[in-house]
């Protein structure tokens, strides 16, 4: 099964909840995933379906529930987001009792609009109901004839979220008096509260980024937006066979995006032996930070083969081959086999270091098909040194959270004939509310998203020889 298209065991996926929250889950065989108030399900039940499928959790038989083998025993390993926040642990437990794992069924649509109960579809388009707003002062729970107890009862009767909401709407005295806007808000709020569906999505870089954004973890990836990330890939002219020099302070998000553009779908047939493309990551600390690659669906072997890492020092000031060789004395097979186990281990470590050093020298002398930089280091000193080995007519693309930083860099590059036409640009995705009859640009766009500088490496002519 291709983990880029189908739900696969061992895969990292994004699970989207009706509340618009999402979580990342690793799909381990025989485990139960608990989505808190939205229910729980067994991983095995969703394996093999297409990524992008929306599932509804349902509970078939109320009476057998207590004896249901799906009921989580205390020995089951439960993946859950619900953390008790304070001392009221017992109360919390009562409010959100341990959810038994329900069965799942596929539902076709997960958009809000199309999952509205039919009875409200006739009410919503009534744009003339605004006048009635006059009579509405406060829509409190007193207008709602269904009590919480009734609702809990309905839930126990395994009624679907949709059905509960339809019932609530028909029981709400003032519902038809609401403006379409408050009708909509009301339904959305209720829906987020009672519906039990979830959607399983491929964890592409955009979804990963959205997840980090929702978690408030966006500064970890230098505040980059999806649209900035995507234009970076295009401007850098990423191709499956390219060899790219990369500096990535986003913990691997940019490397992941480049890998997806280069290799998505290619890593499933064997180990991708026939794929030539390579990413060379230079890092400023002792070890590279590619944390976020753990969410990718590339195997460790695949990553190791296609992503080389070395420190900026090793890249910019590589030792000579002589120096490297002076620190290592190769032993013959026979000599090795005569070593004591501890010595043997030490020898192999030295050998690995030696081989790695030789490879680093090679990498520091290679020519590159592009330079991609997302670094908080001072760019005017960094870029000229890193771009020395970039081929002519190949792009240099720098991302920064701050325009001012790129402004400074652009001035330097303007004055240097090794760079053609530095361009400073910004791209922003403006989302619209996408409900027919109520289309409008959304007012609350997040700030940030970053800026890009793009130019071509060129080879200046020697004007003395003309």
């Amino acid at each position, binding site marked *: 099964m291709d983990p880029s*298209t*189908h739900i696969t065991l061992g895969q990292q996926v994004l699970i989207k909840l009706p509340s618009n929250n999402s979580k990342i889950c690793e799909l381990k065989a025989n485990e139960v995933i608990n989505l808190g108030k939205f229910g729980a399900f067994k991983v095995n039940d969703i394996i093999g379906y*297409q990524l992008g*499928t*929306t599932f509804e959790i349902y509970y078939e038989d109320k009476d057998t529930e207590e004896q249901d083998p799906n009921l989580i025993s205390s020995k089951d390993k439960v993946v859950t987001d619900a953390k008790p926040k304070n001392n009221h642990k017992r109360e919390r437990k009562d409010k959100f009792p341990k959810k038994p794992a329900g069965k799942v069924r596929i539902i*076709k*649509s*997960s*958009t809000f*609009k*199309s999952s509205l109960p039919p009875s409200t579809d006739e009410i919503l388009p009534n744009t003339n109901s605004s006048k009635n707003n006059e009579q509405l002062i406060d829509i409190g729970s007193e207008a709602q004839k269904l009590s919480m107890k009734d609702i809990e009862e309905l839930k126990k009767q395994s009624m679907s979220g949709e059905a509960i909401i339809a019932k609530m709407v028909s029981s709400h005295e003032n519902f038809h008096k609401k403006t379409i806007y408050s009708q909509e808000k009301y339904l959305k709020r209720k829906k987020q509260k009672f519906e039990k569906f979830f959607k399983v999505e*491929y964890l*592409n870089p*955009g979804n990963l980024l959205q997840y980090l954004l929702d978690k408030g973890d966006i500064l970890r990836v230098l505040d980059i937006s*999806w*649209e900035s990330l*995507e*234009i970076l*890939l*295009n*401007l850098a*002219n990423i*191709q499956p066979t*390219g060899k790219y020099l990369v500096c990535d302070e986003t913990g691997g998000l940019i490397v992941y995006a480049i890998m*997806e*553009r*280069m*290799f*998505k*779908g*290619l890593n499933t047939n064997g180990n991708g032996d026939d794929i030539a493309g390579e990413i060379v990551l230079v890092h400023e600390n002792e070890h590279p930070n590619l944390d976020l690659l753990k969410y990718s669906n590339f195997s460790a072997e695949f990553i190791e083969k296609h992503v080389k890492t070395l420190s900026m020092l090793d890249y910019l000031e590589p030792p000579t081959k002589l120096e490297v060789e002076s620190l290592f004395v190769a032993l013959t097979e026979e000599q090795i086999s005569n070593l004591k186990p501890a010595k043997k281990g030490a020898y192999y470590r030295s050998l690995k270091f030696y081989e790695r050093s030789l490879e680093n020298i090679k990498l520091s002398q290679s*020519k590159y*098909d592009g330079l991609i930089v997302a670094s908080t280091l001072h760019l005017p000193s960094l870029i000229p040194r890193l771009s020395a080995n970039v*081929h*002519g*007519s190949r792009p240099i693309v720098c991302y920064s959270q701050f*325009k*001012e930083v790129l*402004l400074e860099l652009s001035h330097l590059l*303007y004055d240097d004939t090794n760079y*053609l*036409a530095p361009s*400073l*640009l*910004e*791209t*922003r*995705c*403006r*989302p*619209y509310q*996408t409900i*027919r009859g109520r*289309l409008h*640009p959304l007012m609350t766009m997040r700030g940030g998203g970053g800026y890009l500088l793009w130019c*071509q490496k060129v*080879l*200046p*002519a020697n004007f003395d020889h*003309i």
Partner: protein
Amino acid sequence: MNSPFTSYKDTIQAGDLVLIWISRDNIKPITITPNENFNTRYGIFPHNDIIGKPYGSQIATKTSNNKFGFIHILQPTPELWTLSLPHRTQIVYTFDASYILGRLDCGPTTRVLEAGTGSASLSHSFARSVGKLFTYEFHQVRYEQALQEFKEHGLIATNEKNVNNSTNSSRVVITHRDVCKNGFQINPLEDTTSLNEQSLPSLNLNADCVFLDLPAPWEAIHHLDAPGVLNNHEQVNICCFSPCIEQVDKTIEALEKYGWTDIEMVEIQGKQFESRRQMVRKLDDALERLRDLKRRKQEGAERRKRLNEKLASNGIATTSTSTSTKEIDVEKRPY
């Protein structure tokens, strides 16, 4: 034939399609041909001087008035190609193109449907980044222009035998077709397409994603349900590109009707900045200029006073103002 859009090249050779960068607004595609010249108002550049040079080379020439003219020779990329297109044609620019590729989850194995081809600016982005592009154009002349261009750019093999063999076939298939009327299925026996394989009765497109840039995309959406058009084994993404909000509304209606979900409407706002250095003008310098003026005035007044008192005086002291300048980096959006 390797396409310059899908593989890297280091040295410029005869027969290469290259982009000549004259200025930001003037980028010309030419095919390098021995013994020909490239003429600009900055001078004449013989192709022979270009052949054998590495890509990215600046080529200089002495002009008649003993100055230098120069150009840069670049290997085409979809982004540079888009910049080289005349602005009068409708172009999907890189700001939109890159977002579209991202949202459609494009990778080297992706199969894309595109209608219409138009100026083929987006087609080149797709061709670079996906496994297979099926593109449709209903306008006869634009179809033929695009077909010719894809051939010249090495994106359509001119001696192709089997389109379904992914390793040895064209990256692009273009069909002359009104998709709103006739849908997406391709029958090489009947259709005017770039396919040379006439023996195929019909073709499984198995598209993973769809891009519609049509005046009335809502008329084409139901045709996607025809057998063999979409890949039924996985999630398929669609992007409809329209200028007017009323078009978007009709498109949403059709998408919902035919079972598409998670519909989002967005607009990409791209900006490009010019940066320049702005001189810092100090208050003290302005004040010193005014003080200087005042001194001269007062001296004049005193002189007139002295003149009035019949005291002649000819000495006028001149002061010079020294201004020091500092600069600050600022951004400036071009109009």
